Structure formats: structure tokens, C-alpha cells
């Protein structure tokens, strides 16, 4: 499946794309983002657009999506499309619920990872050993996982106090981190509602109060993934399996083994994402808890151009839109309409200057529509706010798909010894 078809980009642009993402650039990006949000807050009066509550909830919403996406990244960098992330996440929610409740929260974390990895292993056997189409296998795994956890949950939790056929009893908490002497003054500062200063305080406060240890682990996994895949020989070999497995094999790389490892890790990460949903985002396992987040993770990986940094940005975007609809949803999403309108019109100008006339016209059209909607209404109906992440994904894919480049041999069947 061609997720994107690449157009021939000018050489200069290719060089430009290789820019390193360094710490100053990240900090600058966050600052600009906060500036935009605080402007938005002041103009529209929607206070929840950048409150510390919104930000910490966004982080909690972004992490499971990010972990699923990270799973997708591992698999697809090794050339295996993993649409079964959703199913592996579902397995993870049950793993966390079962082992977290009957043993210990940390055993629950391990259970989530292991069950997810089992899903990954099934996907690996089907796609790598048997050459089954990757999407077919993924869809089948999603069906199996859904049935399996519902069956097992009914079996495991039905008689337990506080549990039911579709829900586990409360799972114990994982340790949370609060740095009290920083959190309280930052809270005061946030309460002042000063332009920009309060928003920075809110952002920092979200980082130092009630941050789950699993969040920190997840963020560390992003860094680790980047390091392993882009800075070690192992990672180079793994990525070579996704770019040109024939060439990799001719250089002595055991392509099957690398793909197996990658897809199993992929399942484990998605499982951890599911575990996060059950243990941190809530404190029980429930049927249907993932709600399609595996797919969103896949989308944010594509959004992030198959890179960890971009993926993290993407998952925060989804986490944010997912959260903001819950926190004074109508008002906040209404405020975001203005931002969308301005961004799209700016984008249109840029596209026009690049000679993409039709695209620019489409952007202006949508941008103006969003602007008019903003001016003519006070709030956005709840159902529309729940659409935001999906519409955002579609828009982003439609606008930027030509600038994305997936691993060259991604989704293709590879059989040992088939390279000349």
C-alpha cells in the first residue's frame, strides 16, 4: 500500500529537510505555540485553551497515541505495515487490567507489554513467515484481539468486587511525581491570567505536578527509539530492512530476524499504550477503552513522517484536540476555529507562492469557512468537537502528503533469497 506517493522534490528542499531537531529548536517551538495559544486565549476569552489542567490532560491523552505510533514506527521502519496496533493496544488494556488487579500495578505494566508483544508476534509470523498481506493480517488481529479480551474479561472480572463482564475492578496507582515547591508558586502565577507569562507557568506546572511515572517512561522510550534506530548499527540494519531488504540481505543482515524483532517490539509498545489507558488515563480496564487510538497513532506516525520527533508532535496535536473538546469543549473548540482559519489562510499564501494554485484555493476555502463559522456562532456542538482529531488528520494528510516519505519497501512482501 502506498501511504503516500512522493513527488520529485527539488534537491535544495531535500537538504533542508535533514535539519537536526535540537533542544533550542524544540524550546522555541514550544514557546511559539504557547504564545499563539495565549493570544488566542486573550482574543477569544476561552480560558481552557491553555490552562495547566488542559495541558496535563493533553499529555495524558497524547502518550497512548504516541506509544501506539512509536510501535507503528518500529514496524514500518522495518518494512511491515502494522494496522493491528489497535488490536495490540486492546490486548494491552486487558494485560494491564488483569495483571494490575490480581498482582501489582508494575506487573500490570509488564503484562500490557507482553500481551501486546504477543499480538505483534502473531502479526510477524503471518506477514513475515507466511507473506500474508500486512493490512489483512492487521485487520484479522484487530478482530481476534477484540473478541479475545471481551471473552477473557468476562471470565476474569465477572465475580470480582467492583468488576463486571466488561470492566475490571480498580487497579492500583502507579507512582506520580509532583515537585511541590515548584508546583504551588506556578499555580499562583497561572492564576494571575497575565498574557504569555501565565501560559508558560501553566505549561511548566503541568510538567511538575502529578506527572505519572509511566509518562516519563514513555518519553524516555521516544528518546531511546531515536537513539537505537538512528545511532546504532542495529538500528541502521533494521531500517535497511524497511528500505531495501534485498540489499540488506546481500550484506549479511538476517532480514527475517530484524523484522521479527521490530514487529514484536511494535506490539509491545502498542500494548504499553493500552496499559497507559487502563492504568494512568483511567484506573480500570473497560471494553472498548482504546476507541480507535491505535489508528490515530498510525496516523500521527504518518503525520510525523516516520520520525520520532514528528510523531511526538503529531500525537500531542491529537492529544490536545482530544482533550480540549472535553474541557469546556464547545467554547474551546470554537476558539480553535479562529486559529485554524488564520493558519489555513497563511498556508494558502505560502502555497500560492509555491505555485500550488488549486491547493491554495482549497485552503482559502476551508479557512474562510472556519472563520465564518467562528464569527457566526458562540460554540461548537459536542459531536463536531469529537470529530476534530479525525478531521485534523485528514486535513494534514491532504495538505502535506507530498512532503512525506515512507520507508521504500514498507508494506511489501519479502521472501528470503528473492534478491537476485
Amino acid at each position, binding site marked *: *500500500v*502506498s*501511504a*503516500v*506517493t512522493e513527488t520529485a522534490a527539488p534537491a535544495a528542499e531535500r537538504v533542508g529537510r535533514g535539519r537536526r531537531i535540537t533542544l533550542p529548536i524544540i524550546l522555541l517551538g514550544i514557546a511559539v505555540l504557547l504564545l499563539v495559544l495565549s493570544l488566542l486565549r486573550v482574543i477569544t476569552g476561552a480560558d481552557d485553551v491553555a490552562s495547566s489542567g488542559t495541558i496535563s490532560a493533553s499529555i495524558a491523552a497524547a502518550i497512548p497515541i504516541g506509544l501506539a505510533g512509536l510501535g507503528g514506527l518500529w514496524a514500518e521502519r522495518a518494512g511491515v505495515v502494522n*494496522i493491528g496496533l489497535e488490536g495490540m493496544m486492546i490486548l494491552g488494556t486487558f494485560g494491564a487490567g488483569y495483571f494490575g488487579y490480581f498482582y501489582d500495578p508494575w506487573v500490570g505494566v509488564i503484562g500490557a507489554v507482553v500481551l501486546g508483544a504477543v499480538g505483534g508476534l*502473531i502479526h510477524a509470523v*503471518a506477514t513475515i513467515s*507466511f*507473506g*500474508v*498481506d*500486512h*493490512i*489483512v*493480517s492487521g*485487520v*484479522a*488481529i*484487530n*478482530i*481476534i*484481539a*477484540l*473478541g*479475545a479480551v*471481551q*471473552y*477473557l474479561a*468476562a*471470565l476474569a472480572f465477572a465475580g470480582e468486587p467492583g468488576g463486571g*463482564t466488561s470492566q475490571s475492578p480498580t487497579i492500583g496507582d502507579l507512582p506520580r511525581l509532583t515537585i511541590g515547591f515548584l508546583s504551588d508558586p506556578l499555580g499562583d502565577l497561572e492564576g494571575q491570567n497575565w498574557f504569555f507569562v501565565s501560559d508558560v507557568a501553566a505549561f511548566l506546572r503541568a510538567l511538575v505536578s502529578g506527572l505519572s511515572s509511566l509518562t516519563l517512561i514513555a518519553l524516555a522510550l521516544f528518546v531511546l527509539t531515536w537513539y537505537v534506530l538512528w545511532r546504532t548499527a542495529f538500528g541502521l540494519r533494521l531500517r535497511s530492512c524497511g528500505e531495501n531488504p534485498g540489499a540488506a540481505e546481500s550484506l549479511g543482515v538476517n532480514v527475517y530476524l530484524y523484522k521479527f524483532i521490530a514487529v514484536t517490539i511494535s506490539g509491545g509498545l502498542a500494548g504499553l499504550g493500552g496499559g497507559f489507558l487502563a492504568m494512568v488515563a483511567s484506573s480500570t480496564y473497560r471494553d472498548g477503552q482504546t476507541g*480507535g487510538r491505535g*489508528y490515530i497513532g*498510525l*496516523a500521527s506516525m*504518518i503525520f510525523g513522517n516516520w520520525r520520532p520527533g514528528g510523531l511526538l508532535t503529531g500525537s500531542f496535536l491529537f492529544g490536545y484536540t482530544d482533550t480540549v473538546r472535553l474541557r469546556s469543549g464547545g467554547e474551546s473548540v470554537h476558539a480553535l476555529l479562529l486559529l485554524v482559519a488564520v493558519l489555513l489562510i497563511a498556508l494558502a499564501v505560502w502555497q500560492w507562492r509555491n505555485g500550488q494554485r488549486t491547493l491554495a484555493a482549497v485552503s482559502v476555502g476551508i479557512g474562510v469557512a472556519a472563520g465564518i463559522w467562528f464569527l457566526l456562532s458562540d460554540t461548537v*456542538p459536542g*459531536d*463536531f468537537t*469529537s*470529530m476534530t482529531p*479525525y*478531521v485534523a*488528520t*485528514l486535513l494534514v*494528510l*491532504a495538505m502535506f*502528503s*507530498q512532503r512525506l516519505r515512507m520507508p521504500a519497501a514498507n*508494506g*511489501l*512482501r519479502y*521472501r528470503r*533469497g*528473492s534478491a537476485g
Partner: protein
Amino acid sequence: MSETVRARLVNLGLMLLAPVLALLVAYGVTTLILVLAGDPAGAVWAQILSWPEQRNLINIVNSASVYYLSGLAVAIGFRMNLFNIGVDGQYRIAAFVAAVIAGEAWLPGYLNTALAVVAAMLVGAAWAGIAGLLRVTRGVSEVISTIMLNAISTALVAYLLRKWALRVEGSNDIGTKPIPEGSRVPGFTIDGVVTEIYGFVVLAVIMGILYSVIINRTRFGFDLRATGHSETAAVASGVSVKKMIMISMLLSGAVAGLVGLPILFGDAYSYGATFQSGLGFAGIAIALLGRNNAIGIVLGALLFAFLDEQSNPLQIVVDVSPQIVEITQGVIVLAVVIAYEVVARIRTRLEQRHAGRDRGPGSDADETPPDGPSGTPGRDREVSV
């Protein structure tokens, strides 16, 4: 026995081998899970594999007709190497529009029904068309875009339902205006049984015949299959791939639009919050099971409907969660694609041995590439990318 008869028998045997293998694997895996979980596997299978009563048989035919339409919609895409994962969203929004139109009853009697059916097909096609358009103009994978469109349609229908629906009498549910008596599609009754077979089973049959004829007997169908097999070859023979993608996406969506209609016109008569969902994903499994073949999909749909219906009373009869059958269904799908792959490999090996023998000693049969275009028969590559 002559050589050709023998070869044909081997071929037939190999063709049947894959589904049989898959069913056995699914049976084994399900049994294993039941035993490991401490549930009575024997009693579960006794219930599932018992001969259904007449009432259950009718239910099976009814839900099979719905599954069939869903499988067909997916199969149209598969023929063209497109993954229409969005059948779910397409039928939901189409069924809603059909329910609204039929409920408003602007036209009398069956004209009203016909209008609603056409509208459902158009809406389904349009919704799938968005994904098609994004694919051909912007290169966005239809897999991702249809998944997003599924979620969007859920929210959109929920919004529209709240806006236009009426409260159903005597409950908290809301639904569209009920379809007037004269526009409902009467079912077939079988003597002595209250449950009726949906009248729209006929619709499923007609669509199946149309599908088979168009794919196998027309120029368009040939182009579609050719493009699905090899884009470059199709381009070389003057087929516009973009046009084919767009058309097959629209057709797939149009058929997907019909999925909810047998239920709507034969049973529910209005679209409410509890309208059956998840039929699209079953369609993917069923299309795979039936190898995108009109008859094969019938068998797949019947099998899925059979498993659903027979597992329903599991909770009451043997105190086992009926979700176990979902595992069976999923394993069947995975096992069947793996089994087809294994069978294709066996077939290749047989052909190679055959060729080697024909050429006599000294020839090297291993020279044939194991996975070359001559090795795997074309029909085994329909969904491989």
C-alpha cells in the same frame, strides 16, 4: 487416470484444502482457548454445531444478506488493490439518509423505497469518493483516510440524529421518523414461523449477480482486474489508473450504502442510536474468506452469520461468553489467508516438479524463481500489495 484429469483433481483438492485447513485451525485454536480458560469446550461446540431451528435458519439468512453486501463492497475495492476499510462509515451515513428520506415519505409507496435506495447508494458513493479523491489527487492512502472517515461519520450521524430525530415512544431512544407501511419491504414467510426472511435478500442476490457479471464479463471488469494485478501493464494498455481508482471506490461505496437497508426496510423501519454497527469490518473478513468471488462471499457470509446466530445462546445454555466466537471468526480469517499462501507455495513446488519431469533429466527445475509471475497464479495475488 489420464494426466489432465489427475492434474485437475489435484487442483481442486488444493483449492478446497485452504478453507478446510483454516476451519480446522480455527476449531483447534478456539478449543485450546476454551480449555485453557477452563470453559467446557465440548458443550460449546455442541451448541454451535447443532443444527439450527427454522427460526434460527431464517435469522442466519437475514444477517448473511447484510454481511454479503458488506463483503461485496469490500471485494470491489480488493479487486483493484484498494482497501475500503470505510464500509462501516459509508453504510452508517447512507442508512441514516435513507431512513430520513423514507420516513419523510415525499413519494408514495415503493417509489419512496426506490428513492431511498438510490439516495443510500449515492451517499455511500460520495462518502467513499472523498477517500478516492484524496488518493488520486493527494496520494493519501485510502486505508488511513477511510478509517478517519469512519470516525467522522459516527460523529456526524450522531449530530444529525440529535437534530432531526424524534423520541421513540415509550423509551429514551431517539430515531428517525418510522417508514410508512406502504414503503416497507415485505418479507417471505415460511409456514408456521413468525420470523420473516428480509425482502431485500433479493437485493443482495441481484448485487451478487451484477458484481459477478461486471467483474468477469465486461471490459470495465477486465480493466479493473488488470489494474489490480499490475498497474504498469494496465497503464501500458491505455487504462487510466486514477480513473479506475475513483470508479471502483465510488462503486464500492455505492454497494456499501446498501448494507444497512435490509435491516432498515425489513425490521427496524427507522434509524436509531442502536442501529447495528461494525458490519464493515466483518465485510473485510468475509471478502477475504470468499476470495472476492461472488459465490465464495456467499459461503463466507453464511459461515459468519451461522457462527453469530449459534453462539447467541451460549451464555444461557453453557454459561460461556459468546464473544468466544469472535476469536473463531478472526482466526478463520487469519488462518485462511495463511492457508492460501501455503497452498500457493505447494502448488508452485508441484508445478516446478512437473516442469522438471517434463524437461527430463538434466534440466534444472529450480531455475524457476520461487515467487515469479509464473509461479503464483494470478488469482492468488488479488490482495497482495
